[in-house]
């Protein structure tokens, strides 16, 4: 009796694990099944290259793909050096309480809700950008990228710090022994030995930037154009889903948002694969 009961519980464990894994596949299956009619009609190319103009029968998501890449890559361009600098500050330059305090503040930042960045973005950042550049409404690629920078930096900083800390101390002893400074030790020993961690941190943060909805939705302006400048209004794939999701369920508009879903799914999956391929991935993200 006890055996069968134990067995039942163990079956539940197995079931749960495979159920959760299957969920990942089912989500993709849904996107594919609902978006496929559009992709299968040989329209995949037009979807990727056309603009979005439903009244003209064009359901391309090219502006949104460009918008997503522009906003997330620009935010990474800001966030990467910023995070590297902060990570150096925390792990190399500062000591003791200062380092501890900085680290705790960065950890706290990971808990700030996205919608708060969007909210403050609307009332603080957008007017500043509008007045400073005197071009456009301030709702633009730049504003969204700046706020996203705040969102993704903590992830990168903490990851960088962890991978610096992983480099065995003995490696650096030699540098210090011949009279090198901590900073020299960092550049000659720590950084070269932790670059996979740095790349993984970057990749994870990029995934976060690509997948964020609220900041772009609230402050990027959502225009359906391919942005030509940093001050142009733009729409991301995520915002596009949020803006169009309730259209006619039979329409091509509705199917096109599943194409957005498929793209986002593939983008983030590729990034996750990249992290795992960088080998060490598993232990690294885990601890």
């Amino acid at each position, binding site marked *: 009796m006890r055996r069968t009961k134990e067995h039942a519980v163990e079956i539940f464990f197995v079931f749960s694990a495979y159920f959760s894994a299957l969920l990942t596949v089912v989500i993709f299956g849904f996107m594919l099944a609902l978006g496929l009619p559009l992709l299968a009609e040989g329209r995949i190319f037009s979807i990727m290259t056309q*603009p979005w*103009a*439903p*009244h003209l029968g064009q359901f391309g998501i090219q*502006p949104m793909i460009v918008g997503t890449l522009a906003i997330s890559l620009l935010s990474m361009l800001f966030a990467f050096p910023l995070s590297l600098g902060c990570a150096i500050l925390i792990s190399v330059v500062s000591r003791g309480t200062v380092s501890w305090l900085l680290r705790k503040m960065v950890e706290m930042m990971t808990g700030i809700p996205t919608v708060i960045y969007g909210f403050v973005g*609307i009332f603080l950042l*957008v*007017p500043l950008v*509008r007045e400073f550049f*005197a*071009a*456009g*409404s*301030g*709702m633009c690629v730049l504003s969204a990228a700046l706020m996203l920078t705040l969102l993704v930096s903590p992830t990168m900083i903490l990851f960088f710090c962890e991978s610096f800390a992983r480099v065995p101390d003995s490696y650096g002893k030699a540098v210090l022994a011949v009279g090198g400074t901590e900073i020299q030790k960092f550049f000659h020993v720590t950084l070269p030995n932790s670059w996979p961690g740095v790349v993984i941190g970057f990749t994870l943060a990029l995934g976060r930037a690509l997948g964020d909805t609220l900041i772009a939705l609230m402050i990027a*302006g*959502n*225009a*359906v*154009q391919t942005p030509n400048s940093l001050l*142009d*209004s733009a*729409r991301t794939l995520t915002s596009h889903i949020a*803006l*169009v999701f*309730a*259209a*006619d*369920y039979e329409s091509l*508009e509705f199917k096109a948002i599943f194409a957005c879903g498929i793209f986002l799914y593939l983008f983030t999956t590729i990034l996750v694969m990249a992290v795992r391929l960088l080998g060490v991935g598993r232990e690294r993200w885990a601890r």
Partner: protein
Amino acid sequence: MKTRVTAVFALVALSLFFCSGAFAAALDAFKGEKGEIRIAGGTAHIPVMKEAAARIMGLNPDIQISIAGGGSGVGVKQVGEGLVDIGNTGRTPTEDEVKQYSLQMFKWAIDGVAIVVNPANKIRSLSQDQAAAIFAGKITNWKEVGGDDKQINLYTRDEASGTREVFWEKALKKGDIAATANVIVSNGAMKGAVSQDPYGIGYVSVGHIDETVAPVAFNGIEPSMENVKEGKYPVARGLFSNTKGEPAGLVKKFIDYLFTEEGQQIVVEKGFISVQ
């Protein structure tokens, strides 16, 4: 003198009594009812819906009324698919929509769609040609229409919007709307966006206009309620609530309530024109 004051008091008291009596009667229909009404769609409707819901739910806590936006297109689809009970539209549902979903339409207010700018902007009047050129992105600087030397920031609505459809058809004569325009998801948000942007231009339900935005005369006609009412202002439309098939039960009572004296008074208070 004293008797006159007393008489006035009596009159006021009496009229208050009758008013409250009439109001209570309109809400009486909801006494003892229980259940949920789900409303989605047109965003111009939201202030009226909210007020009606507040009064009904205030009287009877067993009733829950949920109100979502999304735009007219969303309203039609969601009510048609049975996801909500009432789908609001700021345009007349198309014949196809009515047929496909056997929609019942209830037009409970008349509204207009007006061009608005920030109050800091001097421009208060635009011709049809100017408006069409601005929204098509052909005129890009305010000085070209007599304003400051500043870039024009366009704001438009999403494709599900009835307000966009009416504006596009009646004001822009189906002309292009530039892809550079920022896309806003509701009437309320449009007002907010234009009130924040000194160089912005957008279009909004006339009922939503307040001191935070400046209405712009269209072809010399002010988008005032009077002009909409008298049919002088061309960009006018009805506000509809639609149900799938004949409404029944609580949903019917809600729609009936919109057409009572009290319901229509809410319509007027929120800046729209009563249908009665």
